[in-house]
């Protein structure tokens, strides 16, 4: 496996975390109730902090400083899935995305915790501990809200239906997929996806939400190769608005 392949993997993970952390931070101050405002904000911080851990590792591998990487690239240079760049929508969509994303990340980090590249394994072990709580948070809310009343149930079901094709895009294989799997870095995105489908099905069934047949869904791919929705470029511009005033300045 080449270093390029490893960097590609790390960029995918880091960009997902940064963009979703950024999106979820948009709930700060306007959440549906104070307790959830605080919880969402806290998890958003975790995500941005987790992305930094991977950008730091990329920097050690010769990439530019984390601030430069995060705050000066254009949308097409990001490797995140399109799923995480979609606007926050209503809280039901943000909650469903949080649920679908964190389940996948928990599995991915559990696998990467066994990675033979010790630097990667170390980060994965640490972050897995944080993401465990994100998954618990998502499961609790999904189950409680979906079984509360028809309104909440229908909102979550509609958001789930809307989110699933994009969620499948998280597992888009990269051009280095085979090399990564053969090198034993982790079992690969197909393995993450298979486990993810099992795990979310258990929670969704308890919650009384319907999972459509997987073969009826068309995954939304492209993000891992720099193809994005119209929503990412404005996000990136907003994120770098101040930084770009003078990228060489110390802010």
């Amino acid at each position, binding site marked *: 496996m080449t270093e390029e392949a490893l960097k590609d993997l790390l960029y995918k993970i880091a960009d997902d975390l940064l963009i979703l952390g950024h999106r979820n931070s948009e709930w700060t101050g306007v959440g549906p109730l104070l307790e959830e405002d605080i919880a969402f*904000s806290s998890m958003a911080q975790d995500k941005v902090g987790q992305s930094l851990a991977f950008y730091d590792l990329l920097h050690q591998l010769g990439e530019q400083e984390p601030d430069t990487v995060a705050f000066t690239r254009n949308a097409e240079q990001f490797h995140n899935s399109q799923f995480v760049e979609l606007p926050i929508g209503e809280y039901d969509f943000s909650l469903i995305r949080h649920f679908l994303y964190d389940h996948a990340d928990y599995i991915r980090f559990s696998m990467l915790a066994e990675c033979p590249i010790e630097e990667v394994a170390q980060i994965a072990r640490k972050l897995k501990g944080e993401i465990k709580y994100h998954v618990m948070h998502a499961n609790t809310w999904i189950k409680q809200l979906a079984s509360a009343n028809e309104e909440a149930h229908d909102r979550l079901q509609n958001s789930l239906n809307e989110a699933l094709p994009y969620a499948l895009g998280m597992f888009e294989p990269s051009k280095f997929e085979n090399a990564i799997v053969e090198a034993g870095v982790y079992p690969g995105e197909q393995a993450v996806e298979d486990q993810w489908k099992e795990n979310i099905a258990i929670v969704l069934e308890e919650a009384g939400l319907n999972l459509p047949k997987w073969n009826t869904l068309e995954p939304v791919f492209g993000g891992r190769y720099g193809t994005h929705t119209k929503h990412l470029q404005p996000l990136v511009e907003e994120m770098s608005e101040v930084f770009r005033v003078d990228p060489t300045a110390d802010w």
Partner: protein
Amino acid sequence: MYGGGQVFDSSSVNNELLKDEDPQKLAEFEARIERGEKIEPNDWMPKLYRKQLVRMIEQHGHSEIIGALPEGTWITRAPGFKRKLALMAKVQDEVGHAQLLYGAAETLGKSREQMIEDLITGKSKYSNIFNYPTFTWADSCFISWLVDAGAIVNQLANARGSYGPYCRALDRICAEESFHLKYGHHCVIHLATGTPKQREMMQEAVNRWWAPMMHFFGPSDKMSTHTQILTKWKVKMATNDECRQQFLDMYVPKIWELGLTIPDENLKKNKETGEWEFTEPDWEEFKRVINGDGPCNKERLAVRRTAEERGAWVRRALTAKTKGEEYVAPLA
């Protein structure tokens, strides 16, 4: 983040409420406060004391939740990881303060829902300073440093007050605010000692925010009366002028030290009296903004109202099963 501004306008202290109180209970209550004891939720207290505390704590809570908006809008634009992470944590703290404060106010018998309802209908006020816009990153840095500094002056005083739950909430809040202040100071230092563009941004922010900052502590003591009983009951722990003087004494030298100027040529410390002298703030503007006609009053309340409306289905769902007979323990 909270100033002493609007809480104690004279019309709110209605001594009529005291007429019906049992004189013996009132005397015991005042003796307890005199001895430095804290009043707890189930203790006897005069109606006027309860009313004023609900009003004060509620307004403080509103100030935290509305104060999250002008800074929160910079989370998505904060320059660099360090600032982005710190600002996220800071604004999260402010929302957490609202939660603590609403909890403290609820111990006095007003529900959080009612308080928020009174906020978004404009019945209840919040700190005036958040009715001004944050045009640039430097504005958000000004708030983090100096508005929080002003709030600490006010809150440290109130933390010595007589109502136990409020004091305990304030102790926790002040501990967190002290980190906000360090963060804000760090941001301002970087701008004030940075590139010409950064220095210009910071100076412009100081120019914009100085008048609201002077208003922050509320009208001059000369203008606010009828608060003697609140001082006696340790509801009001320091006068507006005392807080303003303390703030000027602590922070004007630090602002000057950074090479920034303050847009008030009369601002100076009188060596003989030890008091700061300054141009009298425009109290007509203060009143106008408090009464709803500031640059951002409508926007702030609209954002809060929209947030309440968008989140209503979640709150309905959470309470759905606690009504009637079909209560089911929440899944977890």
